[in-house]
């Protein structure tokens, strides 16, 4: 059995990654999923969180937001709105976004606005979490 599978990570604004991968952990809408080579064909959704993938025995991580994946025994395709490496994240910007979202959540909002702000808050918190992790 093959030790690796082909991983493509495509963000809406760039081709983030393409190459052989040994293991993948992604945040699904109902929890974390782990993928090994030879996984059964599966379609699933990403929610914002931390994506981790193992290349040549080394774990790499990235912040992802909404998207979906196509998983096949020999390859995995991830299509997401945004994928960022921890070192590319602008902490100041994420902090400002978090504060802005929290501020807005305190006010009366329509349901749609509420979901928007909550999603924005999630994205900001996720970015902050990943950068603080990698800084350690």
């Amino acid at each position, binding site marked *: 059995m093959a030790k690796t599978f082909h991983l493509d990570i495509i963000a809406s*604004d760039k081709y983030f990654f393409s190459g052989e991968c040994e293991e993948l952990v992604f945040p699904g*809408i109902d929890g974390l999923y782990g993928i090994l080579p030879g996984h059964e*064909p599966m379609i699933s959704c990403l929610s914002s969180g931390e994506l981790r993938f193992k290349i040549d025995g080394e774990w790499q991580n990235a912040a992802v937001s909404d*998207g*979906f994946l196509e998983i096949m025994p020999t390859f995995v395709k991830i299509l997401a*709105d945004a994928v960022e490496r921890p070192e590319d994240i602008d902490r100041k910007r994420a902090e400002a976004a978090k504060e802005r979202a929290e501020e807005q959540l305190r006010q009366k909002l329509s349901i749609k606005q509420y979901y928007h702000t909550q999603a924005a808050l999630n994205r900001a918190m996720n970015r902050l979490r990943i950068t603080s992790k990698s800084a350690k």
Partner: protein
Amino acid sequence: MANVREIKDRMGSINDIMKITNAMYLISSSKLKKAKKSLEATVPYFDQLQSTIHHILKHTPEFEHVYFDSRSNKPEDKKTYGYIVVTGDKGLCGSYNHNVLKLAEQEMSKHKNTSLFIIGQVGRQYFSRRKVMIDGEFLYTAQNPTLYRARSIAESLTDLYLNEALDEIYVIFTKMITAAKMEPEVIRLLPMERERFKTAAGRTPHHDAVFSPSPEKVMDHLVPNYLKGLLYGVLIEAFSSEQNARMTAMDSATSSAKDMIKELNLLYNRARQAAITQEITEIVSGAKSQQNKKN
């Protein structure tokens, strides 16, 4: 023959206009460079999005979902068709806006109940002049498309679709085929068609896939995501088409201004020469009459 001063004035004003068109040419060419860069960056996402969705749909032949519901139980004259029309915010870009608007009117005339969602100032003004109802709260600019804007457009239209305020949604925009060729195009957003994806990609089919956590949940997430990605691609494509159209229009305006100046220059020289000749004739004949007087 027009007098020398008039021609000179005319040349001056043409020169001024040429400066403006040339500046606009430079501006739009630098904007185009930026737009093209983001277009190139999105193309892989856009292509993969279409082929993956196509792939997914192929594995699920018997699938009932609200986003695939063609509302066939509704009679044709009760159905409402929504059109998103992507125009520019400004004119001076050749036939770019005109072509999109013409196609939009042509499409709208096919159905009885239509509702319009306009992106870009030019389209909004055009339809309000013609007293066509447009959605007043749908205010988006065509400049510098962002994923955020695509998301909010996709969300508001999906809501209208799910409330059955709209039964079919199309988007009309300009597609850049090559740098010199642009064509307006209509794409159906909702309900999704299986047929459209059949031609979208040529990947080899393999075994059925499972959906996790459940097909409904996945589709609930996937379809809005797909629409957002599609709209983002559309906005970027339209924006680069607009810049491209403006660049060509301004380039041809500058070159025709150059031609006009060349022609006027010729006229000016001729008029100047005629004036000099006349002056000389007058002086000579004056001198001659003086001479005649002396004799």
